């Protein structure tokens, strides 16, 4: 099997990827926050663009899901993490070899980089060949790695690196500083004076003493005196240093580009799994969704807003989980109910879940069936600007028009409190018109609105309501349930709380 990339099964899958800019809906869905958290601390891999680029083929999603599942296994993850750490060091060492001045120093950093690289490649090859690899992606990479690590090129790099390291490790020299002169020679078998001192006073030792060692700055660079001493050491050990110089010439192109690309791309999976691990530890579920590009019967059981769950980690609060599902000809979720009841959060959950599924990532929820969209549109209300009501309504309508003309039956639209900048009657009639277009397009839509009757305007629409605690309607549950919009029961509950229901009020007023 040919190995293309750990992120893409075929060269076609990566067409147009990585996308140069963040999709427009990222901010509305708080996906920007999610990606920022996922890629935090992994800037060196420049992963954001991969998270900006949804896949368009079901097979491409399955390819990633397989690899992701495999990397969830702790033994596989450990192997990849160890490899990444070593490759990170290879880059650091090579950067030093590049930037330093004295040749004897550059050569040594280059040698050390090669040593770490050889260790990284052979231990990864060894671990993977012993592992039970099931994903197509890792299996193909394993094959590539086996061939590379058995190649003559790699074998000779490994052997010569080892030899050079051994010789340098054996170098030992003595320095005597007398006034302004420095003498360098090989060591004889002179005794270690510190050891003698420790031995003499050993009988008084009890426990650990303070550390009196002075700390010295350890710059990577050498100063001129160190460089002069090193030159003299090289004269004391000419064979060792001649060998080092020609080694560096021979292997100057050593890091293999395919392995370098794998190291970067596999971090897509590692980063995402690292990100969801603490959230899972809070008892929240993630699952690999069944993704379809034909069936619009979607569902998610106990999903949640991932950005919110991540934010709550630091305040040790827990997000409320919510379900959604559409069956038969249902296409549109109309969400209404009291303010601050979790409607926007629910809308984000819906959008994030679909988007993350299109990346091949596990999504919030215990079980999910999702649709592979061609385009995803969001229209969230922006900051209110009172003086500008008219133009805001106009903007709203322009935006909706644009969306509707670009959308196809395979698109997803998420609308949040649009068309609010007008009278209720206007809002109802405009909304009904928009609903008509959505209905005709037969696309998937989630619409948060205060226009409760909207759900009854289309037989593809279902009504969802954010719930309150019946005994105390001022408390939100952040639960969204499938039921008809019913503003009246909410008002009645508030009245009861304040003793203003018919019965309560009658009781309080004595005859």
């Amino acid at each position, binding site marked *: 099997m040919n190995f293309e990339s750990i992120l893409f099964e075929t060269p076609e899958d990566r067409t147009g990827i990585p996308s140069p800019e963040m999709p427009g809906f990222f901010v509305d869905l708080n996906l920007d926050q999610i990606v920022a958290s996922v890629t935090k601390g992994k800037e060196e891999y420049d992963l954001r663009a991969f998270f900006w680029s949804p896949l368009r083929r079901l097979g491409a999603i399955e390819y990633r899901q397989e690899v992701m599942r495999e990397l969830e296994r702790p033994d596989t993850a450990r192997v990849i993490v160890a490899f990444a750490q070593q490759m990170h060091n290879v880059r650091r060492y090579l950067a030093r070899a590049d930037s330093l001045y004295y040749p004897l120093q550059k050569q*040594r950093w280059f040698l050390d980089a090669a040593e770490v690289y050889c260790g990284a490649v052979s231990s990864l090859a060894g671990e993977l060949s012993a592992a039970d690899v099931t994903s197509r992606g890792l299996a193909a990479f394993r094959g590539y790695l086996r061939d590379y690590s058995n190649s003559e090129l790699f074998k000779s790099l490994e052997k010569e690196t080892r030899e050079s390291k051994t010789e340098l*490790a054996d170098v030992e020299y003595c320095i005597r500083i007398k006034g302004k002169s420095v003498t360098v020679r090989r060591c004889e078998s002179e005794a270690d004076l510190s050891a003698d001192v420790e031995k003499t006073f050993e009988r008084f030792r009890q426990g650990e003493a303070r*550390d009196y060692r002075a700390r010295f700055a350890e710059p990577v660079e050498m100063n001129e005196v160190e460089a002069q001493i090193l030159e003299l050491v090289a004269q004391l050990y000419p064979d060792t240093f001649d060998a080092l110089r020609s080694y560096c010439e021979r292997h100057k192109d050593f890091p293999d580009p395919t392995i370098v690309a794998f190291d970067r791309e596999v971090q897509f999976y590692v980063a995402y799994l690292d990100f969801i691990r603490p959230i899972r530890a809070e008892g929240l579920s993630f699952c690999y969704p069944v993704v379809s590009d034909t069936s619009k019967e979607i569902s998610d059981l106990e999903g949640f807003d991932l950005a919110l769950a991540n934010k709550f980690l630091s305040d040790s609060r827990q997000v409320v989980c919510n379900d959604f599902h559409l069956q038969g000809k249902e296409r549109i979720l109309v969400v209404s109910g009291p303010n601050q009841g979790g409607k926007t959060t629910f809308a984000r959950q819906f959008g994030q879940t679909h988007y993350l599924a299109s990346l091949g990532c596990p999504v919030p929820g215990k079980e999910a069936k999702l649709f592979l969209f061609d385009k995803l549109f969001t229209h969230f209300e922006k900051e209110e600007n009172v003086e500008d009501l008219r133009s805001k309504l106009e903007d709203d309508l322009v935006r909706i028009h644009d969306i509707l003309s670009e959308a196809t039956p395979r698109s997803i639209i998420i609308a949040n409190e649009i068309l609010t900048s007008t009278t209720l009657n206007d809002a109802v009639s405009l909304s009904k018109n928009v609903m008509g277009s959505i209905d005709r397009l037969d696309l998937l839509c989630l619409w948060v609105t205060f226009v409760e009757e909207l759900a009854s305007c289309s037989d593809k629409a279902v009504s969802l309501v954010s719930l309150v605690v019946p005994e105390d309607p001022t408390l939100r549950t952040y639960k969204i349930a499938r039921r008809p919009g019913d503003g009246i029961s909410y008002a009645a509950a508030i009245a009861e709380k304040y003793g203003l229901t018919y019965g309560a009020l009658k009781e309080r007023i004595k005859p």
Partner: protein
Amino acid sequence: MKVCLMYRGRDFDPGERLPWNGPDLMQDLQLDRVFGAMAAGDRFLRDVAKSAALSGLNNSLDIILYRQAVLRDCLNNSPLVRRIYKLAADAIETRRKSYWGSDVSTYPPSILSGAVETLQIFLGALTELRTIADEDAGSFASEGFTQFFTRIKREISNDYLGEVQSRLNELKFPEGVLVSARLGRGNKGTNYTVRKPDGEKGWVRRVFGRRPESYTFRIGDRDETAARILSELNCRGINLVANATAQSAEHITSFLASLQNELAFYLGCVNLHGRLTDAGEPVCFPLPAPAGERRLSFEELYDLSLALEMQKPVVPNDVHADGKSLVLITGANKGGKTTFIRSVGLAQVMMQCGMFVPARSFSSGLCAGVFTHFRRKEDVSMESGKLDEELSRMSQIADRLAANSLVLFNEAFAATNQREGSEIAKQIVRALLERRVKVLFVTHLYPFAHEFYGEGMAEVLSLRAERTADGTRTYKLIEEEPLETSYGEDLYTKIFK
């Protein structure tokens, strides 16, 4: 090498964390006066006495007897003990005054020379210690001292003293510093180690005329940068040997400091002992009984802190409360009840840290902690919260109680009316007894005292402050049932006559 005069096999640490209720014990048992007498003006002795007494409540029976024996040796050889104490204290003092190794001084050459200088002084102290061991070890009989001198003779031989001296001479580097190194990261030098120039090999080499290959360069006379780099290289070179030397000095410092600490405790005891015998007060070594045993018997036990304050003999008490878990003390105001309960607590603390006690004879079971619940001075601003405060204190104590703990109550739970106070006290004390806690309770809560006495429990002893028919206090406690009145009327009459 350890001193081990306080514990078998380990050092005494005066910085050890003191029990949580240390401040309460200090206040309620008036320990300050006792420690003051032990210090005889030396603050260091006072601190050590305090730490030893308060941390002593965990000591085993074995350690108590071990210390009693060491203390007897100290009482018999006080001039020698003072001499050893002084040699340790003087050495520690010179180390304290030298600045090397302080946070501001991390320059290896000055650490090295400072440590060598300090070690030279310690060498003098060790030599003197060895001389004392040779000449006077025979006058000591306790296990603690005998083994201490044995260790000194074994570890600090004359050969050893010679070895230390030659090591110190080498560290002055009469022939300059020779440093070995290996290649570290990026081929920079690492593992700098000071080498001892090998005299004999050098001689062999000269005879056979083989000179090792060596290269020398000089830095420019005015090149200050290079000069600074060379001096840093020198620092790196001697860094490890300076550390090893400084650590050695530190190890000997802690040996001498332990010697000073442990002898400080015994010297404090010697001071107190001298003061009491000069005043003609009785003192005795107590007989500790295992923790489970309900033992409390004494003759002529007096309140040491009161005696020290009055500077004259105070009224002593005899009690035989063996087999008792609860001692109720009732009776006349100003009748010596507080003094009595304090004298018992004080003697218990002194016994458990290995001291003698202020009595003709004293025997008691070991206690798993001594706790005091004394009435605190009335705080006007918090009057309403008084019972609250008392119960909160009791709750803190309860967190720390275990079987065989001793709790001394002095008029506890009196911040409310008698019935409520009695009910609280009854419930608390009953729980304590069932959990095997020993209790001494000074109280005016008659319903409480009477209920326990009335039950006729074998483990209850009732003592009453004696009052003669004319109302005079003898400050003696006698075995009598609790009486309903505390003769406050007497006091009232006396004051308002």
